[in-house]
């Protein structure tokens, strides 16, 4: 029968302390989340808004994402590629939020009004006027892209590298590269028409 080696109280404390090190203390996690919030909040919000969500919904998506990040870190889960992780969570939340909004809008608004909302998210009438025709056209082309292509383009515009985009959208690296190239070619061709 194997004999368990005797462990002193000091060793017990040492083990507990070393186990403790793997998950940082709570205030440290909070500081880390706030730091990531400061670095990524606007990018994340822009990405959420690119789904055609109104500003307050986009903000809710960003807020929920950072709270989810807090829980994720609090539970001692993987810290690998946290930027990609938060964008993936925001992507899923934004999709869900948009679905809810579309269901609600289907009951109250005409299809035509909804289409305008998707092209021109959250802009007030003054801002719409300021938005030049050329800019509107470009954004309309982007909105008309297949959803995955538009997401690739928006994520790249927020500074994500190909491997990060691949992780957020569950695509291969090659597919990300092809998607970006295809979308830019489309923007160039459409503009020349």
């Amino acid at each position, binding site marked *: 029968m194997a004999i368990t080696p005797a*462990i002193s109280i000091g060793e017990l404390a040492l083990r507990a302390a070393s186990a403790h090190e793997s998950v940082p203390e709570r205030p440290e996690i*909070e500081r880390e989340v706030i730091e990531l919030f400061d670095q990524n*909040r606007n990018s994340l919000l822009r990405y959420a808004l690119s789904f055609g969500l109104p*500003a307050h919904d986009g903000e809710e998506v960003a807020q929920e994402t950072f709270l989810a990040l807090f829980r994720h870190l*609090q539970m001692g889960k993987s810290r690998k590629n946290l930027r990609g992780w938060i964008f993936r969570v925001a992507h899923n939340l934004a999709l869900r939020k948009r679905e809810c909004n579309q269901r609600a809008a289907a009951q109250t608004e005409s299809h035509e009004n909804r289409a305008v909302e998707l092209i021109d*998210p959250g802009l007030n009438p003054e801002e719409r006027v300021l938005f030049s025709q050329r*800019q509107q056209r470009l954004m309309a082309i982007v909105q008309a892209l297949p959803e995955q292509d538009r997401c690739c383009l928006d994520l790249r515009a927020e500074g994500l590298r*190909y491997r990060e985009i691949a992780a957020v959208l569950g695509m291969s690296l090659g597919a990300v*590269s092809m998607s970006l190239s295809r979308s830019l070619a489309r923007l160039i061709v459409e503009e020349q028409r």
Partner: protein
Amino acid sequence: MRNENTHPSDQELLMRADGELPRGAVAAVDAHLTACWNCRARMAEVEAKIAEFVRVRREGLDPTLPPSAGSRAMLAAQMAELSKAAPRRMRWKTASFFADWRFTAACAVAVVLLAVALAGLKRENQVAVASAYGAELPDRRLTPGATRQVAIGEICAVNHEDVVSLVPDTVRHEVFQEYGIRNAPADKYEVDYLIAPGLGGAEDIRNLWPEPRFDATWSSFVKDQLEEYLHESVCGGKLSLQTAQNDEARDWIAAYQKYFHTREPLAGDSKASAQRAAWILEPWASVLKL
């Protein structure tokens, strides 16, 4: 292997621009770009389109981004709240650690000590919970805001102050319970409407939260200033009712800062201060992008 005389595809050009090309292919593509005007022009076209897309996207989206200060403060408060609600569990490295009788005995002693300590700290703990909820912004999950069907004429027919209705005691009790507040001094909080009744806010628990009265920079009195201003703006046709409701529900502090053009609450008579600030800054608002 890539030949430097072969024209790179659009995809390869973009990958080169993005620094995503495999290391082995970079030199050949670069050598080709140096030699080929056509491909350099294609590359420039791609880069120009990227720059245009990024600029247009920012111009379209950035003005709609709400200020981050309110969300940041709310996130910090929510994290503190979550930490209190579910303390982090310690992770252990080995199962055998649990099997050790000394550890078990130590745990038993710790549990007894903890129970004694908890009993002694119960009262302090309740006060601590209460103060944690003394946030200047409500918890959006509990208080997202709720409105009732109103016509502009209906809310503008009376002064803002006259629309304010008292919250019944039973509802106040429910709100405190929802926010986990017990034994809080009676005058510490005002159970306030997130969207004011004068702006179509409903008497609904989703529209009520315990707002700090005195010991906060952004107290219920400051919020009253905002509500008065919003009510006048809506009734004066300067602001849509929906925008006023959204602004109040989303982040009333940010709304105050936006409409009163200040980072800190204004002292003194709210109406006069707001009108003064708006009158002075209005001609400059578009220039300063306020």
